[in-house]
């Protein structure tokens, strides 16, 4: 049995993989540390629609990219019958290089529009937070924009 949270994450990944609307940025599918064995698939994805897909937060995000990560609270059982009838909430982080201010602003705006257009049926978008600069240590700084989505799942 696949966990409902996994199922919902895969729905998001499938939606982003299947689109050709945002070809200039990457969608992270695997943790960066686990990427070594998966470069072929990643390369295919990049070649096909111009995106890499990661479904967990990479140790070193490489902008432009999006990362799908759990929101908080992540899972909210909200229906009768079973605790497995739940709402699962995800953050879609749009990651842009802040190296050049005007370009970063435009890239963020375009990327957010692209992601909003690709959110699959059944998911609800709760909002898009303001872009924030994040320090990732020796790797420098990234500009992240958080898009909150959720879906109600059941077995």
């Amino acid at each position, binding site marked *: 049995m696949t966990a409902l949270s996994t199922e919902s994450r895969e729905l998001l990944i499938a939606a982003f993989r299947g689109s050709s609307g945002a070809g200039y940025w990457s969608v992270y599918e695997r943790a960066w540390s686990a990427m070594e064995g998966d470069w072929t698939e990643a390369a295919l994805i990049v070649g096909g629609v111009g995106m890499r897909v990661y479904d967990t937060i990479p140790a070193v995000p490489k902008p432009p990219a999006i990362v799908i990560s759990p929101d908080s609270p992540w899972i909210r*059982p*909200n*229906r*009768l*019958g*079973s*605790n497995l*009838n739940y709402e699962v909430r995800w953050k879609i982080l749009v990651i842009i290089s802040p190296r050049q201010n005007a370009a970063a602003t435009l890239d963020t705006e375009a990327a957010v529009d692209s992601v909003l257009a690709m959110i699959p049926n059944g998911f*609800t*978008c*709760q*909002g898009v937070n303001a872009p924030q600069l994040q320090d990732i240590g020796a790797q420098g700084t990234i500009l992240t924009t958080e898009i909150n989505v959720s879906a*109600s799942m*059941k*077995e």
Partner: protein
Amino acid sequence: MAVVSVAGAAFTVDLGATQYEDQITSGTIDTTPTITRTKTLSDVAFDQTDLNSTVSLEFLYDENSGMYDAIQTAIAAAAPVAVGIESATGVWTGAAMYIESANTSFAADGVATCSVSFTGTVTFA
């Protein structure tokens, strides 16, 4: 120490013998007796003269193949619906519950939800 609370998620709900709890977000069972107070020469008498039972359910809209469809079908046929609600050791049964209202709401930033209200005779065992 034993846990004595009952989780709402542990309840099950069936309408017309079909289980629908995985759509239902919350429910309420109201049992409202009507008590008539009569002042007599010696004391005050209290008599239960009526009993009104209602059940209301909030649920996620499930289009034309689930609970919402079953409710609309019952409304169109002006037919009562059998409602059963169970916790671990308690059962509410409304063999013929009439639908008083069914509402659907949909917001652009949320999921479509419905509510339905039944009235009829409910027994608890």
